[in-house]
């Protein structure tokens, strides 16, 4: 099998680090007992491994292809697998039961997101975007809109898209030009061109529900004049069935570096095609001119999901690299051997595999802890606890997105490297993960956008309060580690203490200079994101080592725990040690980054 879900590590992280038991006690999370969660993980792992994963390579070769009539054919097997995904109820895992979901916590959904993305990043984008559409309609839709669209989206009969980008409006959405013209019946007609629309057109579902940012005629300039509209591919009849073909068509699909099976569409609204006359019929969702604000609320969920994609593709690349390293025989061992050995015996291959493993496990730990915080932010009975968890979650989202995706570039690149020359050959399959991962630091806000968010909204705005709160928690873990005077946990403590000190100094620097020397702070924003991401993941790896050590001390002989301690130790020595170096780049590095005159470039 090409992908075996790391159910054991996922379960460990959920129980020992993210506090599944505590989440299960929250009102509204009663269904998420350990036994149920185990059953869900096992069955989902099986579905993802046996049905979705085998379509990864074939989908990459085949691509989604636009047909002359504007329809899009997805690769062989996608349609059937998506039908099974919907029928299996997986789209509805964490959505409300009243619309056909199962109402499970975000923590459980996080595991499902990871597994399906590991199995097939391109395929998983369709449910990921549908999640976004469901969130938007749940959040801002009228009762009628919810009843019309949510059950079909949650059952996987229909899918959703997010239409933000236009050729002139990428990271800067204030420049959106698409128009929405009000009609006598209260609906709108939408005109304009949207680009980079993931699964904007495909053959896997009966209808596609586009969520579109556009301006009404009376809208003010800039970000405060953008509204959000529902534009169905087929206008929905009174009885809930798909009706007339709306005036939204796929003009072309992009030719991309990766995620080739996922159709990235250019959509034309109001090109006078279809069966409804000129202009795509759309319905305002929420209040006029507040579209961007709604988008930003959903954005946290979408950014978190993209962070999970980074962890997912890193896990898949790691599994492939390990399999190859255990199989490929080349050269004698450096210390001498009777003949050539499998390359996993070579120290540098070990280092590469451990780097891949440590980054993946560290990022996974941070992400699941973040998901649990969101559950507590929603369901905890105590308002203070809810608020604390909400600010922790908000601080963590740019880290989960930025750090997990940046590390996925390194991990998938190492995956190619472990394969040597064969890794550069497409048939091997390692290259696909590298190409697929490359989009992750770009879409849903580039790493720089995440870093801006981290500096501005998440650090400067509360004068570093949330960040300092996390540092205080790290210090608590450090003192728990202090009981070990030598060995792996003592090393972990030393490296963690150095990293948390660097983290604190950088937070102080950001807060102190956010107004006085804003260019310097922003020049160091991505290194700050990396430092914070590395340190928080390292902290969670340290917590993992403590939990594993406790199991070992209690007589548990499962080798998983000893492996976890070693991985945490490796993380401490090889990855946490990057934090002090990044501190130097941030605190003193702006000079070199910004000094050149433009014509010196």
């Amino acid at each position: 099998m090409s992908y075996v879900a790391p159910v054991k590590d996922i379960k460990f992280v959920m129980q020992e680090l993210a506090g599944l038991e505590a989440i299960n006690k929250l009102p509204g999370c009663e269904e998420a007992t350990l036994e149920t969660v185990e059953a869900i993980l096992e069955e989902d792992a099986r579905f993802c491994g046996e049905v979705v994963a085998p379509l990864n390579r074939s989908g990459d070769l085949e691509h989604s292809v636009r047909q002359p009539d504007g329809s899009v054919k997805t690769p062989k097997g996608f349609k059937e697998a998506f039908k099974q995904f919907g029928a299996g109820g997986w789209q509805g895992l964490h959505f409300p039961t009243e619309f056909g979901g199962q109402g499970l916590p975000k923590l459980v959904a996080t595991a499902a997101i990871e597994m399906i993305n590991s199995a097939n990043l391109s395929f998983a984008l369709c449910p990921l975007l549908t999640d976004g559409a469901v969130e938007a309609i749940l959040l801002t839709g009228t009762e009628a809109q919810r009843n019309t669209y949510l059950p079909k989206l949650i059952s996987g009969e229909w899918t959703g898209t997010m239409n933000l980008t236009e050729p002139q409006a990428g990271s800067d959405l204030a420049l959106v030009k698409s128009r929405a013209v009000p009609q006598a019946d209260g609906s709108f007609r939408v005109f304009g061109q949207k680009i980079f629309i993931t699964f904007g057109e495909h053959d896997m579902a009966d209808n596609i529900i586009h969520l579109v940012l556009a301006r009404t005629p009376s809208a003010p300039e800039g970000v405060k004049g953008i509204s959000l509209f529902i534009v169905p591919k087929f206008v929905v009849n009174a009885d809930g069935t798909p009706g007339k073909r709306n005036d939204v068509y796929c003009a072309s699909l992009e030719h991309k570096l990766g995620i080739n099976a996922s159709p990235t569409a250019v959509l034309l609204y109001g090109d006078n095609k279809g069966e409804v006359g000129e202009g795509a019929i759309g319905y305002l969702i929420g209040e006029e001119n507040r579209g961007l604000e709604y988008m930003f609320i959903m954005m946290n969920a979408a950014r978190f999901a993209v962070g999970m994609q980074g962890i997912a593709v890193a896990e898949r690349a790691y599994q492939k690299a390990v399999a190859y390293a255990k199989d490929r025989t080349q050269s004698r061992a450096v210390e001498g051997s009777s003949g050539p050995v499998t390359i996993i015996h070579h120290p540098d291959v070990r280092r590469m595999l451990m780097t891949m493993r440590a980054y993946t496990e560290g990022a996974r730990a941070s992400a699941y802890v973040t998901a649990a915080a969101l559950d507590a932010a929603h369901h905890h009975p105590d308002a203070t606890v809810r608020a604390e968890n909400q600010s922790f979650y908000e601080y963590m989202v740019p880290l989960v997105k930025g750090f997990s995706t940046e590390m996925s570039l390194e991990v998938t690149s190492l995956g190619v490297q472990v394969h040597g020359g064969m890794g550069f050959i497409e048939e091997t399959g390692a290259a696909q993960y590298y190409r697929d991962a490359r989009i992750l630091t770009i879409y849903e806000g580039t790493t720089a956008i995440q870093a801006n968010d981290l500096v501005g909204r998440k650090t400067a705005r509360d004068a570093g309060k949330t960040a300092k709160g996390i540092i205080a928690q790290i210090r608590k873990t450090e003192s728990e580690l202090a009981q070990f005077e030598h060995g792996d946990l003592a090393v972990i403590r030393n490296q963690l203490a150095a990293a948390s000190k660097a983290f604190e100094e950088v937070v102080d620097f950001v807060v102190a200079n956010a107004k006085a020397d804003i260019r310097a702070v922003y020049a160091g924003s991505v290194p700050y994101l990396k430092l914070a991401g590395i340190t928080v993941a390292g902290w969670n790896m340290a917590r993992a080592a403590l939990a594993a050590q406790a199991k070992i001390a209690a007589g548990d002989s499962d080798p998983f725990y000893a492996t976890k301690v070693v991985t945490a130790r490796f993380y401490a020595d090889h990855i946490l040690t990057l934090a002090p170096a990044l501190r130097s780049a941030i605190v003193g590095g702006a000079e070199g980054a910004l000094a050149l005159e433009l014509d010196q470039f």
Partner: protein
Amino acid sequence: MKILVPVKRVVDYNVKVRVKADQTGVETANVKMSMNPFDEIAVEEAVRLKEAGIATEVIAVSCGLLSCQETLRTALAIGADRAILVETDVELQPLAVAKLLAAVFKKESPDLVILGKQAIDDDSNQTGQMLGALLGRPQATFASKVVIEGGAAQVTREVDGGLETIKITLPAIVTTDLRLNEPRYVTLPNIMKAKKKPLENVKPADLGVDVTPRLKTLKVTEPPKRSAGVKVPDVATLVAKLKNEAKVI
């Protein structure tokens, strides 16, 4: 029509099985366990009979440790209506299991018992046959097709020479072969529903069955490692070796 489906919890088929250091058995600590694949086919077949309107109730039963509950929950998630665990930590051998199942049979009076032809751990291939004998009911083993009509089962069996079709009177015992069906993927809503289905826990003593092992395992060892081959200079030598040493031609 009521169907009883015995299911066994075994080491997952993807796991590379290792022998315990003291040679008393195979290592099961920290090893992924799941439902015996042949039993999964049995559950699937029973649920299909129910979905086709032929069966009215599907009862899954498992004998062994408390953790067998998990395996029963899987059966419930596939579509069984309720489950019975015969809980014991005694090592169960096929005859003991057959006796326990016979006792459950007498309590439940099903029209059909459908179970895997063998379990992938000990490969005994005995329980179904012993159960038939203990109950004095007909058996059809290695089924690749089951048709129920008029109080009888017409079963296609996979035998050495090809396929054999027999008709047996119900109540009867059917054991499944691999080609009977392809089990479905369990859906999320059914996992959630399975939690709420009844799961009864009984002990062998409640059923009046003595499960004390009759056989003693002396030791368990791994198969011998394949030794290195030899190169032969020409075809004549190869033929000679096959004739005289391997004695295969």
